[in-house]
């Protein structure tokens, strides 16, 4: 078995399993801690609050947006571009259809792929340099933040290194990093991609039930 076959085959399956099971375990573990039932007479709907809370926090509020514009632009740019890259880049679609499920995802033209990559890189770099150059960020950041960022960066970088598609080693390196990333994910703060709906929802539910303003 060649290096590429290994990282795209057995290692990828193992990593994916750890990713899926670990993430599920963690999310379920958080929910299972449970909340005491609130018996105060409600003023609104907790369920609605859960949903509204989740949606409301997608949109930054004007009064803060101005102060934190750079962060919002970089944050949204990075996340959206990465999502687009992962799902709609031609090599990824080929891989997904080959190894995972036979879905028909619309394929981006190559220039779209490149533009998305530029935005994702710019966004991630800005987010990280903000982390290292601001006293607040330096104080609250820990190893996990940096490892998560760097792993993601390396996955992206190796992906872009492999763009010529002429060296199987580069493809293998990209896949190896993807595997490492998948394994690291459930144990780290990268999990925010799944836990955000819980935190937003919980606040939303509390607020909604009390008829509070979101």
């Amino acid at each position: 078995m060649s290096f590429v076959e290994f990282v795209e085959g057995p290692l990828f399956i193992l990593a994916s399993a750890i990713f899926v099971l670990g993430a599920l375990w963690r999310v379920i573990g958080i929910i299972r801690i449970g909340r005491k039932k609130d018996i105060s007479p409600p003023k609104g709907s907790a369920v609605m609050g859960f949903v509204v809370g989740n949606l409301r926090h997608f949109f930054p509020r004007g009064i803060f947006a101005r102060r934190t514009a750079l962060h919002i632009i970089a944050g949204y740019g990075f996340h959206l571009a990465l999502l687009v890259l992962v799902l709609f880049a031609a090599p990824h679609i080929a891989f997904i259809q080959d190894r995972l499920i036979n879905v028909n995802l619309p394929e981006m033209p190559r220039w779209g792929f490149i533009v998305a990559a530029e935005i994702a890189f710019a966004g991630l770099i800005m987010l990280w340099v903000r982390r290292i150059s601001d006293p607040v960020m330096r104080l609250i950041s820990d190893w996990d933040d940096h490892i998560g960022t760097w792993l993601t960066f390396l996955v992206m970088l190796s992906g872009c290194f492999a763009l010529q598609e002429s060296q199987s080693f580069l493809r293998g390196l990209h896949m190896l990093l993807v595997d490492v990333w998948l394994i690291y994910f459930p144990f780290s703060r990268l999990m925010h991609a799944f836990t955000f709906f819980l935190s937003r929802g919980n606040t939303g539910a509390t607020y909604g039930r009390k008829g509070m303003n979101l």
Partner: protein
Amino acid sequence: MMMRQILALVLFASLLNVGVAHAQTTAPNSEANAKAAQALENIMARQRGEVVLPSGSDVPAPEGGPLFGPDPGPPNTLGAQSQSDYWRAYRGGDPADVVAAIESGQAMTTTGQQWRLLRENYIRKYAGWFPVGVIGILLVFHLVIGKMTISAGRSGKTLPRFTLTQRVAHWFMACVFILLAFTGLIILLGRLAIAPYLGKEVNSILTSASLQGHNLFGPLFIIALVWMFIKFVRGNFFQLVDFKWIFKLGGLFGGHVSSSQFNFGEKSWFWMVVLIGTVISITGIALEFPWLVADLRLLQLSTILHGVGAVALISVAIGHIYVGTIGMEGSIDSMLKGEVDENWAKEHHDLWYEEVTGKPASEDAS
């Protein structure tokens, strides 16, 4: 017009391939072996003066008269007539108009040859030594003279120096620059500095990766450059005090030097980044999108300027990084926290200190 652009593109692609060594897998193949043996035999036979007609080649043997010129000259190793005049005419073409040159039978241009010589014999050969030299000088400086400390010690009080946006712009530029510097140096020097030691295979992988990375990060450099310019240009215009600073060599070797928000060294660095950065950006665009440039000579010039400019910036950047980190106590604070120690400001940017605080920077200043 279209034709011309496509041609330029094709030519460019072949130029780029100079930097990309393709690893050839040499699978044993008996048929190929047999052909090679036959070819060798034919060559030896011709050298013995026998006439051997080329086989399986679509180059026709000259029939009757010469193709070009009065004197056909001696036959070449394939048995066909040598066509030196043909080639001489062919390479005399006008590089500004490749299509016309081809139509008149003169498609090869000699500037390419000169460009190649320049690139191989000068740039490739010496480029790497500049950064290495700077590192060497800094090492000696650090060992002999050492870190510039804040002589009055840290005061514990700080002054705001850069906003968060300025800091992010700076580090964004730094990250992109470093990525480009590494990938660029590999593309330029891989054959010289990597292939002989780690092997062609490794060099080939690194070069392929670097080329893709370099192309992808290039556009980000332009964004970073514009952003950085907008965020830092205030305070970076040269002033009278800067000339005094030059006379005292920036206080590197002692002596008090006055300066406002940025000293002469920083201002020069800023303008180097801006000016050389602009050149690198423009030439970079030409190289990444060669169909935008019709004149081959411009592309050749671009690779030269791009390389020379980059090597210059990288060399100075090393010095900049040195002063920003281990070279000078308290400097990095401005880029990590946005604030600097008051005593640092007094010692390095006294005029700025006075402007910001309204207090004199030293006792004897009234």
